[in-house]
């Protein structure tokens, strides 16, 4: 045997574990999705069972608590485990090395599953941070970060002990995923605990909104897109046995994608109170994201060119081709929805839900299915139990997706048009009753639920197919012989950063930033600087482009320098958007109004609102649009949510906006509405909340909560515990007494009292200047 040859046994055992658990969690995540979809049509199964003469309230069975379970399970349990299986399988092979540490691999596997179980228990119990896709409570957040670090160490360590010299494009995408998700997750989960199960995020109002959607948008980018692109770059060429279409395209679309994606977050906040320059950035960077996204689609689809015959016979290729097509569709739809005027119609509507699902069902789900059908026969060394069943899975899944997306387009556009429609003179609403618009899309919502069920059935069939294939299979080891430690062209760190492409890129970002954000001389400097840098770069590249290629080649042999460059690229966008909003004088973020502080009782009510997940259906943000103002009242100003930890601007209006709900209706209306919404709002699909009239307010938690908020610069006075308890008792007695006069009996110490108090406070503000500065 040659001295240089070493024998390597891949760690495929952990890959098998991740693969099997992916299948299991896919069923859980999708089943909960189907359930919550049906809840929107049938309030009889929302928040309890009210069918066949039954009358059983069950608080853990309500839309507001289960929808976060669906999203978290689909993203972190299903796609997360699929990603780990794909990354671990392909990375070992692409770098010709066994995963660096068996211990870390197993800690990663079991730790991640424990996190998911913890999430599945806490979310239905109403334990939540109240931020979308970031609902899990702080102890679980810490566990997630730890597990991510374990994953990162295991991955980068494997890169360091690799037996190939350079890194393949799939690995670039994995690196971007690991680095960026860590950055996003940590910043958006910064919180101060008030107890073991509860915390307040450190950001509030507009800052929290910006950080949340910087995270939310890029969770889609770096949890649901970049790792899957990496998986595409490995599994698609493997499945069709063809070379990748274009390396050049890989380079360009990788770097443009990771740089541009980060900036697009504010497109979730268009036409809100968010400062205009941020809205423009969000919209424009979304438009610029179109081509980089399609670069990935082209490389995927064109790699299949020449192997289209397999499309007819091989379900794996079918799934991949469809998934990449859905990726292309979703990444065209995204920029379209980010155009401010389109967004005015689509935001808060079902169109967004449809858009998300063409990405998750179409792109993520089908990539996962393709990968699983390709991997299972190879990992267990047995042919797939049934190709026909896999084909059937493809078709029933496809019909499911199409039903889902088409019904959500119709629903979103229909309701969006109705909600924004004005009468001829433009002074009043064409459809004044919100429920009229909701009930006009009932059939579409039902179609969506049926489509989702079809899709779910497809995955049930896959589960059966996988089970039949692997049960009783003898697991074999995969061992290869490789040349150990080939010569790597190491590059000193300085050379990694000081060279033509990096210098041009740096200046090419620096000068446009001056141009965009500066005034007068700085702006002119930025403009001319940009033009000169671009011209110089083009000329220089034409002259010595080959050298740039050599440098990039060397960079690919130096994984740590590569990683640092990726981190810098993804950090810039967030830094420019978020840091000014967090650090610059807060007065500019007030727009002349400042929120009135919640009383202790109202604060308790707000935490109940968050805990029940009301934000899943109700926004608190009246946009700068005529129809919004006519429907809900004066448009929201930034200062009106400046003390909201977390912000509650919302993302979907299954119910109406609540930003100015306070004082609009009497207490007894709210009481009746919470007990059974349909008594006062015929046709409503909101669940009833009878348990709120029984459960007690956790008064003892309030002093700690208020003290944390004071730490976060909410100007609460230094109340003693007794003052807080007295204040709660007094305000609650008042509400109970008022209800009693109207013939409703409610104990003052119940959660419903607190929630009513909160409802009646919504939209309360003072004109800035009447209050002392909080700085």
């Amino acid at each position, binding site marked *: 045997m040659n001295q240089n040859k070493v024998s390597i046994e891949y760690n495929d055992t952990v890959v098998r574990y991740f693969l099997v658990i992916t299948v299991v969690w896919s069923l859980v995540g999708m089943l909960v999705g189907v359930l919550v979809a049906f809840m929107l049509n049938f309030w009889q199964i929302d928040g309890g069972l009210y069918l066949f003469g039954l009358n059983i309230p069950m608080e853990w069975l309500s839309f507001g608590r289960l929808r976060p379970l669906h999203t978290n399970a689909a993203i972190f349990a299903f796609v997360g485990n699929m990603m780990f299986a794909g990354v671990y399988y*392909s990375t070992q*092979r*692409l770098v*010709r090395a066994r995963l660096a540490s068996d211990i870390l691999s197993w800690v990663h596997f079991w730790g991640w599953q424990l996190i998911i179980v913890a999430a599945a228990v806490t979310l239905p119990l109403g334990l939540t941070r109240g931020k979308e896709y970031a609902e899990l409570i702080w102890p679980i957040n810490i566990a997630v970060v730890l597990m991510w670090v374990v994953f990162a160490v295991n991955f980068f360590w494997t890169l360091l002990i690799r037996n*190939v010299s*350079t890194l*393949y*494009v799939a690995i670039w995408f994995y690196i971007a995923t690991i680095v960026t998700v860590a950055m996003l997750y940590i910043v958006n989960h910064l919180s101060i605990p008030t107890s073991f199960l509860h915390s307040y995020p450190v950001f509030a109002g507009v800052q929290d909104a910006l950080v949340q959607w910087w995270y939310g948008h890029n969770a889609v980018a770096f949890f649901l897109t970049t790792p899957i692109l990496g998986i595409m770059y*490995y599994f698609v*060429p*493997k499945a069709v046995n*063809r*070379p*990748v*279409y*274009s*390396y*050049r*395209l*890989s380079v*360009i679309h990788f770097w*443009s994608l990771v740089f541009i994606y980060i900036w697009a977050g504010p497109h979730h906040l268009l*036409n809100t109170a968010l*400062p*205009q*320059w941020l*809205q*423009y950035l969000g919209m*424009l*960077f979304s*438009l*610029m994201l*179109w*081509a*980089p996204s*399609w*670069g990935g689609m*082209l490389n995927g689809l*064109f790699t299949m060119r*020449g192997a289209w015959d397999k499309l007819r016979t091989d379900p794996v290729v079918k799934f991949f081709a469809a998934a990449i097509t859905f990726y292309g569709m979703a990444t065209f739809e995204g*920029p379209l929805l980010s155009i401010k005027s389109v967004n005015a119609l689509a935001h808060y509507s079902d169109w967004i839900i449809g858009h998300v699902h063409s990405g998750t069902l179409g792109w993520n789900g089908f990539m996962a299915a393709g990968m699983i059908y390709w991997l299972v026969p190879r990992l267990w060394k047995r042919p797939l139990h049934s190709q026909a069943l896999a084909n059937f899975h493809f078709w029933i899944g496809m019909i499911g997706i199409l039903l889902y997306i088409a019904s959500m387009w119709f629903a979103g556009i229909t309701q969006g048009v109705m909600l924004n429609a004005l009468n001829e*003179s*433009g*002074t*009043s609403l064409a459809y004044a009753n919100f429920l009229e618009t909701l009930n006009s899309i009932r059939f579409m919502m039902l179609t969506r639920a049926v489509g989702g069920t079809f899709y779910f059935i497809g995955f049930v069939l896959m589960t059966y197919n996988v089970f039949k294939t692997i049960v009783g299979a003898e697991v074999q080891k995969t061992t290869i012989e490789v040349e150990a430690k080939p010569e790597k062209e190491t590059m000193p760190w300085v050379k990694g950063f000081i060279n033509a492409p990096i210098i041009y890129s740096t200046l090419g970002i620096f000068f446009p930033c001056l141009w*965009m954000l500066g005034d007068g001389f700085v*702006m002119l400097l930025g403009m001319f600087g940009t033009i000169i840098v671009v011209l110089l770069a083009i000329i220089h590249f034409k002259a010595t482009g080959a050298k740039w290629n050599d440098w990039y080649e060397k960079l690919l042999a130096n994984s740590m320098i590569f990683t640092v460059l990726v981190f810098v690229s993804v950090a810039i966008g967030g830094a420019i958007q978020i840091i000014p909003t967090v650090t610059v004088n807060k007065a500019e973020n007030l727009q002349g109004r400042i929120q009135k502080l919640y009383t202790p009782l109202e604060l308790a009510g707000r935490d109940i609102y968050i805990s029940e997940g009301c934000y899943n259906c109700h926004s608190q943000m009246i946009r*700068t*649009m*005529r129809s919004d*103002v*006519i429907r809900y009242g004066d*448009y929201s100003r930034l200062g009106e949510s400046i003390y909201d930890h977390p912000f509650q601007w919302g993302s979907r209006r299954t119910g109406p906006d609540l930003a100015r709900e306070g004082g609009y209706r009497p207490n007894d209306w709210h009481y009746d509405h919470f007990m059974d919404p349909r008594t006062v709002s015929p046709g409503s699909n909101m669940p009833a909340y009878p348990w709120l009239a029984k459960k007690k307010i956790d008064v003892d938690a309030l002093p700690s909560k208020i003290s944390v908020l004071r730490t976060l610069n909410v100007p609460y006075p230094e109340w003693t515990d007794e003052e807080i308890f007295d204040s709660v008792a007094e305000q609650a007695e008042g509400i109970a007494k008022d209800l009693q006069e109207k013939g409703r009996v409610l104990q003052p110490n119940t959660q419903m009292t607190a929630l009513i108090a909160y409802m009646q406070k919504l939209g309360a503000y003072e004109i800035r200047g009447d209050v002392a500065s909080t700085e």
Partner: protein
Amino acid sequence: MDEKEREDLRNKNIKLLDHEYDGIREFDQKLPNWWLISLYATIVFSVIYWVVRHQWMDGEFDFKKLETELAMVEEARLEETLQMLDDDILMAFSRASDWTEAGAATFTQNCVACHGSDLKGENLPGVSLVDAEWLYGNKPTEMYGIVANGSPDLTSGMVAWEGLLGPKKIAEVVAYILSKQE
């Protein structure tokens, strides 16, 4: 890849890179032109949009546009209200302090010369507006008509105020006068 395809690629000068990762090879095809054009086009569009909307136009553009729209809505709503003015609405206005105060201001500027600041018109050309006698009807809408269109008695000196004051101010004045009745 068969031999024919290799031949084809050589003819088109498409390079297959030397890299190989677990059997995966990579072409180095030129970037499709339409793709490059769409990349550049979105960048150019973004620069232009930014310069026009953010740097040339007002940074508060959206808010101001909305405020203008809302002011128009307010105006149009009032117009609609005035078109369906009836006695009840005018009586309601006479009990709303913002209407009567605005009416008082208009009255002071335009009407006291003839009707007096006490509305009695003593030793002045105008008639008393606070006695029980009404020459042309005592309904609020009839009063509105006199102010808007002037007195049928062309010699009386009471001219048509509609073009000068507009419907809103007239309604305010009527509300003010109504509020002064015993």
